[in-house]
């Protein structure tokens, strides 16, 4: 397995490094290849390394005691995960699973610390990466005033369901919504919409039927939306 300098250069941690500096990084990187659904790290286990996605994608998530999953982010080529645990010395804050066959570059915790000490450009780049992550998670925390989002989503579904202005029109002319659009309309992240739809399904308000969201109990949906029943 050859660690490619061009790939390293495209990773934000290593932007702006000279050939010599990149070589010093390359000497400390090893490659890991995982299949779809392979767990890469487990929440609460000791942090061993920081991971960079070369190809494929990784889902970083937390699971509640009841088994509910909250996706924190999808990590795509060029991006990193498990940085926080490597820098604060704590355990892995979340689990990570491969969404596709994925190629990773990995640098051990000890080597990352050495690189930071030796190269101020890397240290500055890492601050930038962590700052962007903090911004992302601040936004997610805002969204996870969770009950509120579920209520807003319930209201949106009521508006788009049968008794709206396009009720009775041809199926093809009825507007359709992607989860991204629903997220934009209720002011949240797509990840939160997926979880909110599951919550509505568990409450018996809706049923996910492939490309359809079927309102199975309008009264429950109205209650959850805070809209008084007609």
């Amino acid at each position, binding site marked *: 397995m050859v660690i490619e300098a061009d790939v390293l250069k495209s990773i934000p941690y290593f932007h702006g490094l000279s050939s010599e500096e990149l070589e010093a990084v390359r000497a400390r990187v090893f490659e890991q290849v995982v299949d779809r659904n392979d767990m890469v790290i487990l929440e609460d286990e000791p942090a061993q390394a920081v991971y960079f996605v070369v190809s494929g*994608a990784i889902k970083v998530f937390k699971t509640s005691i009841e088994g509910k999953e909250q996706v924190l982010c999808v990590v795509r080529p060029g991006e990193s995960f498990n940085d926080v645990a490597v820098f604060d010395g704590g355990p892995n804050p979340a689990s990570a699973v491969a969404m596709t066959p994925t190629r990773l570059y990995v640098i051990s915790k000890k080597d990352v610390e050495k690189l930071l000490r030796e190269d101020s450009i890397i240290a500055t780049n890492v601050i930038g990466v962590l700052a962007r992550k903090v911004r992302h998670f601040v936004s997610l925390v805002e969204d996870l005033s969770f009950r509120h989002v579920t209520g807003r989503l319930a209201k949106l579904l009521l508006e788009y369901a049968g008794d709206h202005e396009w009720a009775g029109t041809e*199926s093809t002319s009825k507007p359709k919504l*992607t*989860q991204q659009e629903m997220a934009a309309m209720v002011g949240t992240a797509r990840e939160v919409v*997926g979880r909110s739809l599951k919550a509505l399904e568990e409450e018996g308000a809706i049923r996910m039927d492939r490309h359809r969201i079927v309102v199975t109990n309008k009264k429950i949906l109205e209650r959850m939306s805070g809209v008084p029943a007609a």
Partner: protein
Amino acid sequence: MLSMPVVDALLCNGCGLCLTVCDCEAFVFVGNVVQVIESPDCGYCTDCESICPTGAIHCPFEVVIEENYEISIE
């Protein structure tokens, strides 16, 4: 016709992540961009939409009231 995810060819950057995440082989490369082919195995998991870095893939949902809902609650 089966409802399938939709690809906006203008936004597709040809990264191929959708091909790798899709279990039912509903995506194929045509030139430098992906196209969707109808697959009866597509369960509309929306993984392709969530993985797409450019927002080129859409999985639109229709929102409908359960048939016979009004009758069933009477």
